């Protein structure tokens, strides 16, 4: 049974290899091949999941050694997998949601002539992400980590003929690279501190390491997580990543990529638990990002960018929960799973709307679409209710638990975090209601395209609506299913550990507060956008609005603090190189050249002048000899 584990990775990897190397012969059915590879991996995942369910908690984690990668004395790197409750949860999410997104892409990318390549990249993405969550050591995890970065680069820049897409891909890659450096440093630190990089080895020895060592590792891991999960200060790539095709956004935001950071922190819980400073840093990053993303989401008129802000904010919730330690790990992962469903559903819905509106992304040019796109409306609406935490739907259970956990941190810290998460919930309700109203309600604000064609919104084909319907079911029921009888908690507890903490507020009070915040957000959004017609051209807005439209000046900040000094440094180095080093070398050459051209005159071609120099030389030799003898 365990031998199935490598096949989980192998199936999409083989799919990617076939699709990318197979050539035009596969054009006709390549997309179905890609979907099949993803689905096959999902089936393997299900089989492994049910066989794991049949074992007792202690026997659930299994290892599968594939081969020795670097067998050197004193350093062992193996390609071996570890499947435990945490990884299998991720495997099911990645392959399940991934398969649905593959299916959706069949319809969405139907008219793209590079569709086969697109599916190859999608498969590569899944394979890299599966490798990341299945690795049993940090080095193999790093391979998957880099693979995810590569696949995201290829997919974000898939429409590379658009300069904006090419730039966005480069930006995502570069920003991720900063995080990757963090992970590689963390791995090196682990090797110097513990002598190996396997999960078991590192976590087993963690309690003998000094606190400063653990804090350093923890902070480096946090940097890595910030890069992949688009957390402040490395979040700037996420908004631009919307340049990729919409299924890519769904895949990045729901199933792969941004969840990697949450996985990394949860997996490394044993280190973070012993390094409270690092944990505090994680919580701070989560709390800041939570509000940051939510504020950005409120101001964006581009439907995908609004959703991107929302992802940032929701991942902020997860990072915050993961930073709370054993109180929060389980809920971070639970929110991750439910978020995977509703965010994928929302993105696919947004893609469906764009599909119907001739690739228009500006929500101010939507309006009144609910009658024309009923399936999209209902599935998007259910995703919307789930993300704002409407009682009974998925988001309610997971987000409520995180808010409770934030309060349960205790002390002033707990109050601050609780307040932040509550504000986040209100802002989430506000911007999602705004998206909903602008897109599906109100009057039609459709604009003709450049050639004067009026858009004719229509429902998308079945390959696109089916995944949306399935995901809508997930958005509605997943949370309840996981929360029912604390089943998810019991499932993950042996891996991540769990403690209740001591909340100053009872869970009923927290739930009521959350409800109140949510209703306030919804009400405010309705008052602003629902009661009066929405202007087609955005109003100038306050300073904060304008800043939020520009991603809270993140790019300007990066530009001023990093890009400009970087360019200045480069210019200074170029100046030093061209004037200093080149000047020295060129000057040396010119001097030698000048001397040579003068010396050359000696070579005049007259025999007697050569003879004279010979005589001169002889004279010097004789004189020297005589002089030496006399001394």
């Amino acid at each position, binding site marked *: 049974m365990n031998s199935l584990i490598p096949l989980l990775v192998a199936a999409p990897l083989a799919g990617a290899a076939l699709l990318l190397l197979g050539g035009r012969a596969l054009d006709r059915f390549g997309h179905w091949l890609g979907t099949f590879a993803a689905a096959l991996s999902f089936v393997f995942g299900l089989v492994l999941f049910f066989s794991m369910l049949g074992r007792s908690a202690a026997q659930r984690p299994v290892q599968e050694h594939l081969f020795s990668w670097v067998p050197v004395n004193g350093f062992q790197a193996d390609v071996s997998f570890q499947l435990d409750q945490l990884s299998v949860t991720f495997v099911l999410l990645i392959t399940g949601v991934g398969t649905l997104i593959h299916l959706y892409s069949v319809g969405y990318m139907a008219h793209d002539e590079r569709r086969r390549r697109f599916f190859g990249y999608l498969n590569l993405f899944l394979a890299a992400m599966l490798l990341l969550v299945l690795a049993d050591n940090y080095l193999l995890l790093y391979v998957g980590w880099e693979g995810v970065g590569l696949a995201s680069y290829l997919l974000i820049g898939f429409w590379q003929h658009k300069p904006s897409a090419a730039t966005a891909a480069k930006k995502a890659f570069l920003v991720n690279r900063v995080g990757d450096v963090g992970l590689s440093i963390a791995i090196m630190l682990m090797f110097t501190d513990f002598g190996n990089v396997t999960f078991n080895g590192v976590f087993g020895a963690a309690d003998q390491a000094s606190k400063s060592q653990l804090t350093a590792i923890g902070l480096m891991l946090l940097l890595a997580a910030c890069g992949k999960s688009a957390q402040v200060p490395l979040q700037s790539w996420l908004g631009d990543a919307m340049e990729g095709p919409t299924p890519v956004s769904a895949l990045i935001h729901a199933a792969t990529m941004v969840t990697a950071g949450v996985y990394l922190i949860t997996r490394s819980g044993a280190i973070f638990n012993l390094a409270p400073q690092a944990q505090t840093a994680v919580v701070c990053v989560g709390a800041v990002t939570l509000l940051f993303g939510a504020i950005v989401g409120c101001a964006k008129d581009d439907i995908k960018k609004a959703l991107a802000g929302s992802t940032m904010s929701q991942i902020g919730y997860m990072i915050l929960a993961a930073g709370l330690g054993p109180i929060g790990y389980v809920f971070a992962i639970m929110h991750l799973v439910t978020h995977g469903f509703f965010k994928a559903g929302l993105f696919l819905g947004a893609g469906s709307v764009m599909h119907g509106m001739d690739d228009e992304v500006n929500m101010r040019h939507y309006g009144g679409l609910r009658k024309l796109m009923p399936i999209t409306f209902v599935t998007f609406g259910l995703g919307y209710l789930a993300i704002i935490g409407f009682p009974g739907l998925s988001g309610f259970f997971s987000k409520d638990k995180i808010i409770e956990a934030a309060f349960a941190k205790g002390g002033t810290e707990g109050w601050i975090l609780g307040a932040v998460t509550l504000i986040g919930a209100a802002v989430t309700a506000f911007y999602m209601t705004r998206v909903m109203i602008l897109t599906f309600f109100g009057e039609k604000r459709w604009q003709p395209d450049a050639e004067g064609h009026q858009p004719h919104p229509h429902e998308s084909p079945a390959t696109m609506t089916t995944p949306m319907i399935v995901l809508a079911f997930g958005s509605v029921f997943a949370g309840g299913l996981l929360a029912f009888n604390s089943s998810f908690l019991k499932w993950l507890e042996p891996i991540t550990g769990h403690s209740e903490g001591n909340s100053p507020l009872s869970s009923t009070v927290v739930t009521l507060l959350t409800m109140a915040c949510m209703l306030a957000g919804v009400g405010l959004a309705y008052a602003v956008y629902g009661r009066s017609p929405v202007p087609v051209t955005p109003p100038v807005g306050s300073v904060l609005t304008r800043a939020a439209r520009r991603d809270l000046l993140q790019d300007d900040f990066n530009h001023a603090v990093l890009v400009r000094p970087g360019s200045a440094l480069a210019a200074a180095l170029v100046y030093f190189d061209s004037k200093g080093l080149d000047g020295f070398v060129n000057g040396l050459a010119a001097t030698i050249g000048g001397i040579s051209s003068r010396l050359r005159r000696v070579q005049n*071609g*007259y*025999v*007697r002048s050569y*003879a*004279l120099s010979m*005589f001169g030389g002889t004279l010097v030799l004789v004189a020297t000899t005589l002089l030496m003898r006399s001394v």
Partner: protein
Amino acid sequence: MNPVNYLYLAALLFTIGASGVLIRRNAIVLFMCVELMLNASNLALVTFSRLHGNLDGQIIAFFTMVVAAAEVVVGLAIIVSIFRTRHSASVDDSNLMKL
């Protein structure tokens, strides 16, 4: 007679030959100056042989004469052939291989 005087004579002859080589352009004159230098060194060799009382210097002088004779044969032939083709015995005129 003091043998050192022969050495002075040899030095004088050598200097005359060397200045001739450096100053004159006519190949024949140059050639004669080279011969003069060779013979000056021969004279010096023989004088030293006499001074030291062994025959090494005289033997080397014979060698020098043989080599000089051979050299004269080849050198004169070259000079004559150059003169025939170029109608000039000046060494400065043979500059075909000069850049």
